[in-house]
């Protein structure tokens, strides 16, 4: 059991109202807090460098965040069930490479077919993770740490037997256009990410299975007892994470055009940073898609700000690490604060 979980326990037992309210309250405080932090960064950097505030630059930030956000949406589903998927970077890497190579070999092929291939590959890899975790009873961190390396090695094996690198000139223009097309003046990449976030967010908020994910994450044993098919749900979230990584990989290939076997290495760190900064509890049961997407945007804005302020990109990784730690520390304090407020309110009533 986690210690943060134990901190919450007394409040839960004493007050049923508190039990229902606590996660929701924490999420709301977190999202609001994150927005304030975001505005604060924008304001500070904007004063130093006015071009940071241009519409063009905002579009640039959202573009750089789109792929990360899609992967973070999948990761959120996994983390909500008290699991974690560390293999996302490798899954994005392998689908990006395979999709780009597919288009290189068959330039005349229907665009949709290539996209479906990438998504299907991601889905299969995610299902393998899901099988190992839910039916093999291997802790998610062990299973996906293993597949992180297995999947990455697979990219190297594919690359060793085909080509070391797929270049922009090798693939049809239609594929690259996925990343550059604009619809109503908004880049397609941003729209795709937004649609994914809205669909998954709605599913999580409104569907029965969506609510069950929260139940599984808050108390796996209790969820089992009230008849929730935990194994199936856990399998499904890993499959969904794989599918979204597949989609992200397809877009990765289109956006960066030049793809080799090392692409998206270490992406899992950024994804986990986005999810944790976005207020999704790493021990499951609370957090929202909106939060995770906001988390990704905050990270993207920080990266952009480093660029604009001419600060070395070497700071970026350290900054991500610090962001993860600060977010977890703040979470602990916010949870305690909300809990205390709820308790004192209940005492007054």
């Amino acid at each position: 059991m986690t210690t943060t979980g134990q901190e919450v326990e007394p409040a839960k037992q004493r007050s049923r109202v508190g039990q229902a309210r606590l996660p929701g309250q924490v999420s709301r405080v977190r999202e609001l807090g994150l927005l304030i932090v975001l505005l604060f960064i924008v304001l500070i950097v904007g004063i130093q460098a006015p071009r940071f505030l241009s519409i063009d630059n905002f579009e640039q930030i959202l573009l750089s965040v789109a792929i990360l956000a899609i992967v973070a949406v999948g990761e959120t589903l996994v983390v909500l069930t008290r699991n974690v998927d560390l293999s996302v970077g490798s899954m994005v890497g392998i689908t990006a490479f395979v999709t780009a190579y597919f288009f290189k070999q068959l330039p005349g092929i229907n665009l949709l077919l290539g996209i479906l291939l990438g998504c299907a590959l991601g889905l299969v890899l995610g299902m393998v993770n899901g099988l190992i975790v839910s039916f093999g009873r291997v802790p998610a961190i062990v299973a996906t740490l293993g597949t992180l390396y297995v999947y990455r090695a697979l990219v190297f094996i594919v690359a060793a037997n085909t080509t070391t690198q797929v270049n922009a000139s090798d693939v049809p223009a239609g594929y690259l256009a996925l990343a550059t097309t604009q619809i109503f003046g908004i880049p397609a990449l941003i729209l795709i990410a937004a649609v994914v976030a809205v669909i998954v967010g709605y599913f999580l908020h409104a569907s029965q299975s969506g609510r069950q994910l929260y139940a599984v994450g808050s108390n796996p044993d209790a969820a089992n007892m009230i008849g929730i098919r935990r194994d199936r749900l856990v399998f499904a979230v890993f499959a969904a994470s794989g599918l979204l990584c597949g989609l992200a990989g397809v877009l990765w290939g289109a956006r960066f055009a030049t793809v080799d076997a090392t692409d998206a290495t270490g992406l899992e760190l950024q994804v986990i940073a986005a999810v944790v900064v976005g207020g999704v509890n790493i021990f499951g049961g609370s957090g929202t898609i909106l939060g995770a997407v906001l988390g990704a945007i905050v990270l993207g804005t920080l990266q952009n700000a480093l660029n604009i302020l001419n600060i070395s990109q070497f700071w970026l990784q350290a900054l991500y690490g610090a962001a993860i730690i600060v977010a977890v520390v703040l979470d602990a304090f916010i949870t305690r604060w909300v809990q205390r407020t709820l308790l004192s309110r209940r005492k007054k009533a």
Partner: protein
Amino acid sequence: MKRHKSLLISWEALLVLLLLIGVVIGSVLSPYFLSGFNFYALTSNIMEIAIMALPMTLIIIAGEIDLSVASVLGLASVVLGLLWESGHPMWLAIGVALLVGLVAGGLNGLLVTKLALPSLVITIGALALYRGLAYVVLGDQAVSDFPSSFTNLGFGTIPGTEIPWSGLIFAILVVIFVAVLHFSRLGRQLYAMGNNKEAARFSGVNVSRVKLMLFMLSGVIAALAGVIFTARFSSARPDNALGFELAVVTVVLLGGVNIFGGRGSLLGVVLAIFIVAVLQDVLNLLNISGDIQSLAIGLLLVLSVLGPNLARRIQVVITHRRLAAGSSMQS
């Protein structure tokens, strides 16, 4: 309890068998496999991982995890390189590098114990933070003009043998760690903490202090591994030992240590270290590149947990059937 013990012993027997199979395959593949030089090569290749696996074993048994070890190694390595390059004596550079490890581990430990935060997330954050700091300190540069007296510690051997100096350090550490984990009160407290933290606290174990010490120990040892790594490659780079945390966690879990704490032994971990070393060596003999070798390590990690789980499940099914058959016969 007895049942656990018998399972554990059989797991270690399985590891011995695996190790023997690896050695047989290796000696069939190459006449040089059993040579002294090859023994030197395969040992020195894994020593940094082996050394870091010792405190990791204790941390996982106590119910926590430290994923930042490879980053601490990298940070210690660049600090060492930078100090040497700027003209400080080697003993000072090594001392400061070890101190950096102590502070890095201490920060992890304080966040985990004082603020009661999950070590999994904290050390993932620390993984990025410390590796990031290594890049901030040295950029994409490398320091490589180390004195031969220092690099000899890395590739030299104990005179008259084929044992690398790092092997001697590892052997000494193993003796100390075995004494602590298996023959001291502190060792039994670690198992108690891993099995039931609350019960351990109520029976008078200062859980926070022990955990803080474990993380500080892990930091110092990772920094020591950084010194050895720097000497062995005569190079201090920010990306030194990138991703090594996987191998460290792999050998610990392959050694039969339970990821949720409370169970495991150093004998198993030491056996697992040599299995991975032999495996890497065999793959090298087969001319398989390092990028693809990680396939084998990743598979080993998953299978080391999946295998026993599936075996247990099958065993349960069989027992149930037998019981069902028995009760139907009675009625």
